[in-house]
């Protein structure tokens, strides 16, 4: 498995636990990933001693801990110009992106318009959109934070 796929799966696992879901499936043209977990009761009964330790070793228990979002790690996307912030290409169109969406480097996040120049702001890294900081149609200043992205770090 490629390391970026591994990271993508880990990210899905994070979303799964954060949102307290049991299953997520994403599909692209060349890839389908399904992540599932069994929700265990908060108080587990005492685990009986396993009679077959060999079999137990073959099915290792996967511990998933709910991750804390490390704010220092988050990437802030800022406005390169003073202008008007739009989340969609036209008033009737869907937003380019919603919170919690997975984003990839180069993906368009929004438009900032000034003097009829439509400036598409692209994402700088692969990751997940944690927060949209500005309302569509609002005026933004130079350098004003627009989005928080939780980047996927490739180790």
């Amino acid at each position, binding site marked *: 498995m490629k390391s970026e796929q591994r990271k993508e799966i880990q990210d899905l696992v994070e979303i799964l636990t954060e949102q307290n879901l049991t299953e997520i499936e994403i599909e692209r043209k060349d890839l389908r990933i399904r992540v599932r977990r069994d929700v265990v009761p908060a108080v587990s009964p005492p685990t009986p001693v396993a009679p077959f330790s060999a079999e137990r070793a073959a099915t290792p228990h996967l511990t998933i801990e709910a991750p804390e979002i490390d704010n220092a790690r988050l990437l802030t996307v800022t406005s390169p110009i003073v202008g008007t912030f739009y989340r969609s290409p036209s*008033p009737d169109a869907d937003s380019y992106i919603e919170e919690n969406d997975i984003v990839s480097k*180069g993906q368009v996040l929004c438009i900032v318009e000034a003097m009829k120049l439509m400036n598409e702001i692209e994402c700088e890294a692969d990751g997940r959109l944690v927060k949209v900081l500005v309302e569509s149609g609002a005026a933004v200043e130079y350098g004003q934070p627009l989005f928080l992205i939780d980047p996927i770090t490739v180790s």
Partner: protein
Amino acid sequence: MTPTSDALNTIAIQTGLTTQALGQSIHILTETASTNSLGMTLAASGEPDGTVILAEHQTAGKGRLGRSWVSPPNKNIYCSMILRDPRLQQHLTWIPLATGLALQEAIQKTLGITPSLKWPNDLLIGNKKLAGILCESTSRGQTGGVLIVGIGVNVNAEREDFPAELQSTSTSIFQESGHPSNRNTLLTSIFNYLEKWYDQLASDNIVAVQSAYTAACSTLGIDVRCTLNEAREIHGRATAIGMDGSLQVIPFEQGARQVIEIRSADVTHVR
């Protein structure tokens, strides 16, 4: 007289071209959805700075915020340019204004018609639209991306070439002058003037652009209605051009003394 067909032609356009980059590479298409969209695609595939995309017809010509640009075939100019000079990135907001200025100059010098330049860059004759400009760019972090400048000029279109609802608000050089004009010659002139003003921006000579634009812009000194969005409209007097190309307006609202800088709006000349 009916306008004659003057097919777009690379050699004809490049004859008389004095530019370093603009128009040195030209793609001419019979038809495309939008020259700006194609420009973005070609830019992504590595086409060089100054590459020009021309089409005889657009099936989905674009305007601001998803609006359309009506593009009757074989008569007008539908042109997009790929700009990659990194020095332009810090003056991005001046590009639309400099483009309008150059377009006005080219039409005036080549055809003897002087359209008015409405902020930021519509060219009008009376209250009718002769030409429009749509700039699109991409930015990623601190690195500038690509810049596409799209211009549409109504050259030889007759009144009937426009849909009925646009006939009272649009015009063409043919309708104003009564005779057809050569699109290739006009394009040569447009590229020459555009590069002159883009060079000024690239060499940080903003004052030169600002002062030429201020002299040319018909929006200044008159009453305007600026529609910012469905909920907000400002009615006031346009007084000056700001340091980033914004339109400075003093509102007529009671008690309002402060200048408002307009950057995204539909501006209507009231008087």
